């Protein structure tokens, strides 16, 4: 009897000790398909790490950005792992707000991360966030409509070809728009597209001395081309369209071409969701022969805030979620087509992945064609392809986005929008102390 009591007592004490030892980490993330899948597969992690419990906080992208920025700036300590993008990583790392990821494990294989992506997430050679999925942008087009128009999409088209093809594919009577592009105002919406596009037109946000460049002919050429193209061949109300709106239009067969994130390829080629799944072709983002293409580079990545008390557990999780093992886990449960794209070179060398994802090669080529450290034709003092990695960019980018969106909607002229953008950028740069 005594022995039984003693055994039970010891077992209870062990259970309590284990419960007390179990550490819970809080992970902030967005509701994108790949993130949701990760949440469903975390049993694999907790089985291997029974002493770590995972709490998830899923938020809308803008709210997430605001929440994690508030938390990290005030050292609130609410999160142990944060999902952030290539815009935040260099800025936050320089502020010492993030911990360098140097304990990801012996079998993690950091060198397998695609160099362009790793470059965007590193400062002074140290990796500050591990990419969960990466993307560039490219052209998705309807092969059947292209054939009907009597054209053949080259692997690396020019903007002139895109205009020519859009004009021929537009069939408003049947609800087909030649081209669908982002128009909704926001630094991560229309300005992601327009900044990347402007790179291929030879434009830049600032010169080497941080002087705004919206008064230069390259920006005029970019914005005029965009507005003219969209007026002639874009959908109605395009100034309200972002990624999701254009995705819906393309899936319903209402766009001949759509230039947007490479991650969209898995949506438009999914027969369960897309009416045109078997008719989609892919090409690199267009250029103007100046040496830069109009494609961007982005990676949703997992980072650890410097204020966390649970850095070891957090890094274990980051290592698991961005490992080769995780890619194999997703492939075994949901097929290779659902593996998070754009982060590891080994994925693109995998024959099974290439077979399951016909857009794989074009995605990798697009990612490799983007250089965040030299994004423009002329030299610039900043890093970032579709953004400028300075804290002022979120506000300024959205202001300029609103001006350009108004130009697309016909509420102002291209010249007026550019003049106001130049004034807004000059004011922001002066206030920020970049120029006098």
């Amino acid at each position: 009897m005594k022995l039984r009591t003693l055994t039970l007592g010891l077992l209870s004490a062990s259970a309590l000790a284990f419960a007390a030892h179990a550490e819970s980490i809080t992970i902030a993330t967005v509701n994108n398909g790949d993130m949701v899948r990760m949440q469903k597969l975390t049993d694999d992690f907790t089985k291997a790490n029974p002493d770590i419990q995972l709490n998830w906080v899923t938020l809308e992208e803008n709210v997430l950005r605001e929440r994690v920025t508030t938390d990290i700036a005030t050292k609130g300590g609410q999160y142990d792992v944060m999902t952030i993008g290539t815009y935040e990583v260099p800025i936050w790392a320089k502020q010492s707000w993030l911990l360098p990821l140097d304990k990801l494990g012996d079998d993690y294989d950091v060198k397998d991360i695609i160099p362009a992506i790793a470059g965007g997430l590193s400062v002074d050679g140290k990796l500050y966030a591990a990419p969960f999925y990466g993307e560039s942008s490219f052209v998705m087009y309807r092969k059947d409509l292209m054939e009907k128009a009597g054209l053949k999409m080259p692997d690396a088209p020019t903007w002139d070809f895109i205009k020519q093809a859009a004009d021929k594919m537009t069939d408003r009577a049947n609800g087909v728009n030649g081209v669908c592009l982002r128009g909704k105002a926001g630094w991560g919406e229309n300005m992601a597209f327009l900044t990347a596009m402007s790179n291929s037109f030879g434009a830049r946000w600032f010169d080497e001395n941080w002087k705004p460049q919206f008064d230069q002919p390259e920006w005029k050429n970019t914005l005029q081309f965009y507005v003219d193209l969209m007026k002639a061949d874009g959908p109605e109300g395009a100034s309200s369209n972002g990624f999701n709106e254009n995705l819906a239009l393309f899936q319903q067969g209402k766009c001949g071409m759509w230039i947007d994130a490479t991650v969209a390829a898995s949506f438009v080629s999914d027969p369960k969701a897309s009416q045109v799944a078997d008719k989609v072709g892919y090409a690199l983002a267009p250029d103007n022969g100046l040496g830069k293409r109009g494609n961007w580079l982005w990676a949703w990545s997992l980072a650890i805030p410097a204020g966390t008390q649970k850095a070891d557990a957090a890094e274990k999780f980051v290592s698991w979620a961005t490992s080769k093992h995780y890619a194999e886990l997703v492939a075994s449960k949901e097929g290779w087509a659902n593996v998070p794209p754009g982060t590891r070179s080994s994925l693109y060398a995998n024959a099974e992945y290439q077979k399951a994802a016909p857009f794989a090669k074009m995605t990798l080529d697009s990612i490799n064609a983007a250089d965040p450290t030299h994004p423009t034709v002329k030299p610039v003092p900043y890093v970032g392809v579709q953004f400028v990695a300075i804290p002022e960019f979120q506000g300024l980018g959205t202001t300029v986005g609103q001006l350009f969106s108004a130009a697309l909607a016909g509420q102002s002229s291209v010249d007026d929008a550019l003049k106001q953008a130049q004034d807004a950028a000059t004011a922001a740069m002066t206030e920020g102390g970049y120029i006098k």
Partner: protein
Amino acid sequence: MARAVTTQHKTIATAAAWIVALLIFFPILYTIITSFKSEQEAIQGFALIPSGTFESYSEVQQQSGYFKFFFNSVLLSVGSTILALLIAVPAAWSMAFSPTKRTKDILMWMLSTKMMPAVAVLFPIYLIFRDTGLLDSRIGLMVMLMLINLPIVVWMLYTYFREIPGEILEAARMDGASLWKEIIYVLTPMAVPGIASTMLLNIILAWNEAFWTIRLTTTNAAPLTAFISSFSSPQGLFWAKLSAASTLAIAPILIMGWFSQKQLVRGLTFGAVK
């Protein structure tokens, strides 16, 4: 003839009221309809007849666990309302029955706190919550919701109390009632309809509050507003799931509102016919 005109006017007024009501309710109705569609149906354009699938509800429950958020919403809205009433009833009593020359100014000042955009005080409030260990705590959020709705609660009760004749309270005092007995046994029973409608409105306001409830919580205290927010996606069309999450979040308060509409309407319109 006059009777015919009156009947015709009544019919027109009723029809107009129904049209306005339908217009106001239509976005909610369409959200409910969309929640019974598949994701593919949801993006295919306007359609009032769904296929009737419960797929989105099942996925939403699997993904997030509705009941934890629901429990927090109930606790926060009811708790903050009780706290607000505990402060607002004596405050409104003193302003209604013992006004000073500054009472109007105080009332206006209280209301003026509602005029500032919440985001303007996000950082100070966040820092206070951080330093007092109240981030992601139900108590902290309850106090926050009480504070932001307190001006409205005081104003509503003040307006209602002013309709109660002061002579009745004087009579109670002459019979020897103390201040608390006067408030608890004389004023409160007479003001029950007003307090009830104020309470209902405050519960609705606290239930729907989405700025602070999202920004001051992570996992423990997150209510249904955070639950809805978690289904909005920047890259992916999950409209049916988002609609199912929204329907689940608004259903309890919609049902409560339906059953208590008489008190609510009275609460929102008292004083209008004076």
